[in-house]
């Protein structure tokens, strides 16, 4: 008995019997069991990775709910993961190396170095232009490689980079409408520092805003890293002149703090009332609206400053570009999502508090309630752009109307990194290794301007040569 009990049914017998039972059961209930499984397998998936937006309401009130609703309406399981700006590059590299990860990855800089591992998005770019009109040039130049003739990314938006100045300070030195050209920064900025004790805040540090400022200065001085055919042209007298100018500006209107700045330092300096002028997007002003309204009411904006010959350029501050890695099994779904996002870009503009500008200004505003006060007479995104910058819907009570008006023309004086040529991996490496801010900072700290430019030229030539060998950058070897 005991033996029988101990022996009972062996594990092998149990598995055999249970397996047979389950088999019979499954055969009988086949349709009940398998049809839902097939349905589940058929449900499409879309995994999106993107930065945690500087303006939180973009993610919380627009993007995340929009992605969810779009997924529900189209039978797609959408997952959105947000990560910090600084982590995007490393995370993308890791996913590409692993050959799996997100289907749609948003970069906030041109992702040109990813070209060999991401899909050519010519089809979706062409479809978007068909539906929403022409894409603005700086967006195309940041997502299209003329050498390989591929769209390595899809640019849906960008951010204007105006000058932010404190009106009360500039009024006291006789320039109430703020600086118009770079020379004004020396003339009036030095007086503000000397007479009112507030310095100017243009970074010369190893961070993104200093990179933007260096490019804006050079373009306005009619010089650049490369020409439109991607030949390196930085070593010329105009660059030397621009670098010398920045040394003069540093000595007369700034302090050594600008050599240590991080990406948020100029925002902090403006909000703390310790900067008379900075080069930044409206995010600094939006932060001031929340944290120090009195300062925000005193912050006004000017377009890109003019150089000696009247040229004025500023860099896009942030550019929003999606890539679809080649490993993605949901590329078509990702492309559909991109097009749906474009259809709703009015909301992207509104919930980013006008931080996002559209890549397709001619997009028509969909009918019906849009989740924001309707703008009378507005039918395209360009209409919204003009109306909202003229009368900022996020203006504080008692704040001057129309202070953002100068941003209406942002697309005329903002351009892409790499201007007058396209963005490229070589331009990206020059950006990521801070060659330009360091060139300017070296001169400001005593190096001869021509020497600083020569040094930068050598580094840039080496960088371009390496990427040309990989076939991703144009210009002469």
């Amino acid at each position, binding site marked *: 008995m005991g033996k029988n009990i101990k022996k009972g049914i062996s594990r092998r017998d149990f598995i055999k019997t249970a397996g047979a039972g389950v088999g019979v059961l499954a055969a009988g209930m086949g349709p009940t069991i398998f049809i839902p499984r097939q349905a589940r397998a058929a449900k499409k998936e879309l995994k999106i990775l993107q930065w945690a937006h500087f303006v939180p309401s973009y993610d919380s009130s627009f993007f995340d709910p929009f992605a969810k609703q779009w997924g529900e309406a189209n039978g797609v399981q959408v997952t959105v993961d947000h990560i910090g700006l600084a982590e995007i*590059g*490393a995370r*993308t*590299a890791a996913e*590409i*190396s692993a050959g799996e990860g997100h289907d749609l990855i948003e970069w906030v800089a041109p992702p040109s*170095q*990813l*070209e*060999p*591992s*991401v899909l050519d998005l010519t089809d979706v770019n062409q479809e978007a232009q068909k539906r929403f009109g022409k894409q603005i040039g700086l967006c195309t130049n940041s997502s299209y490689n003329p050498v390989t003739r591929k769209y390595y990314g899809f640019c849906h938006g960008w951010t204007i980079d105006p000058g932010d100045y404190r009106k009360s300070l500039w009024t006291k030195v006789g320039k109430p409408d703020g600086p118009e050209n770079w020379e004004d920064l020396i003339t009036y900025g030095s007086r503000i520092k000397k007479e009112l004790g507030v310095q100017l805040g243009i970074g*010369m*540090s*190893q*961070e993104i805003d200093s990179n933007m400022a260096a490019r804006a200065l050079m373009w306005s001085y009619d010089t650049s890293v490369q020409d439109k055919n991607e030949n390196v042209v930085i070593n010329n007298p105009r660059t030397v002149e621009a670098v010398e100018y920045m040394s003069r500006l540093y000595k007369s209107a700034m*302090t*050594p*703090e*600008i*050599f*240590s*700045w*991080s990406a948020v*330092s100029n925002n902090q*300096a403006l909000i*703390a009332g*310790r900067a008379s002028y900075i080069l930044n997007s409206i995010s600094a002003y939006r932060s001031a609206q929340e944290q120090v309204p009195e300062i925000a009411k005193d912050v006004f904006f000017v377009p890109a400053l003019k150089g000696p010959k009247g040229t004025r350029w500023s860099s896009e501050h942030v550019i929003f570009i999606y890539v679809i890695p080649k490993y993605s099994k949901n590329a078509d779904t990702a492309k559909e999502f991109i097009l749906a996002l474009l259809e709703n870009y009015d909301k992207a503009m509104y919930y980013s508090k006008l931080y996002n500008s559209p890549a397709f200004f001619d997009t028509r505003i969909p009918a019906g309630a849009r989740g924001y006060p309707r703008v009378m007479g507005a039918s395209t995104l360009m209409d919204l752009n003009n109306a909202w910058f003229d009368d900022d819907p996020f203006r504080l009570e008692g704040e001057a109307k129309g202070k953002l008006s100068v941003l209406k023309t942002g697309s005329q004086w903002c351009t892409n990194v790499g201007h007058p040529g396209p963005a490229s*991996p070589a331009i*990206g*490496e020059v950006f*990521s*290794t*801070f060659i330009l801010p*360091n060139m300017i*900072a*070296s001169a400001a*700290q005593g190096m001869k301007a021509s020497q600083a430019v020569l*040094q930068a030229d*050598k*580094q840039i030539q*080496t960088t371009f040569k*390496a990427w040309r*060998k*990989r076939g991703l950058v144009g210009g002469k070897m």
Partner: protein
Amino acid sequence: MDAIETAPKAHFREYWDRRRILAPVMISPALLYIVALVGFPFVLAILYSLSDATTGNPSIHFVGLRNFATILHDPVFIRSLENTFLFTFVSQALVVVLSSILALALSEDFRGKQVVRFLILLPWTAPISLGAIGWLWIFDSVFSPMDWLLRAAGLLGVPHGFFGADSNLYWLGRPILAMASVIVVQTWRILPLATVILLAGISAIPNEILDAAAVDGASFWRRLFQIEIPLLLPVISIAVLFGVVFTFTDMTVVYVLTRGGPINSTQVLASWAFFVGIEAGDLGQGAAVALFLFPVLAGGTALVLRFARRREVA
């Protein structure tokens, strides 16, 4: 029945008692860990450094030693190499001196010793990024509390002030002060580990030797330099080894405080490898930068370990 059931158990125990079976089983988790998390990435890094790989195209196309040749002509790489040595040796010299003092102090009995030990260990247990952000505030160009103290003491921000007439020292904005700042933070970070290692070493010194020295009337300094430090040398060398390896290969402090600036004056090999390899996408060159000092570190490590072993045996 019992005999039938216990026989396999005994056999099993005996089986596991065999050294040639137990030893590999016990060591295998560590071995697996090293192979998977250290060995594999290391081999991959070597392959990358000899290839044209980028973040966008991580496939390996061998280019020989081209990446190493290129970085040797890069002034930022040379600067980073010099900075790495300066950063490591100055911070570790400070660590050796300060940890010896701390360990000797903590080996004595005094009130509140446990609290002091806890506080000294704190920098090691807290995440470094958190600590470095705290230091970022301490060295802030505008709101630095150290500057505030100096101003309050009349040493800064006044005409003919000892530290100048500017309202701030701009710790992270001036190359020399920026390097001094990252060295201070790295010293603060490594100090607890070295102190704990030395403390363990001190407690292992036989009391008879110290008692004999006391009976013979040896002064503190004589006891320190002729008994304690010579006996502690193997332990000190291990503490230095850890500190040097950690400092040579780490970028956190530099990345959080200065991102290598101003003008690459605090750039070290680890941070430069990250900027070139990951941020700029040139994996091959980034790997070459990262691996450049490996032979030096490996050789140095072997020498230190050999020295420590010899001293122990002696």
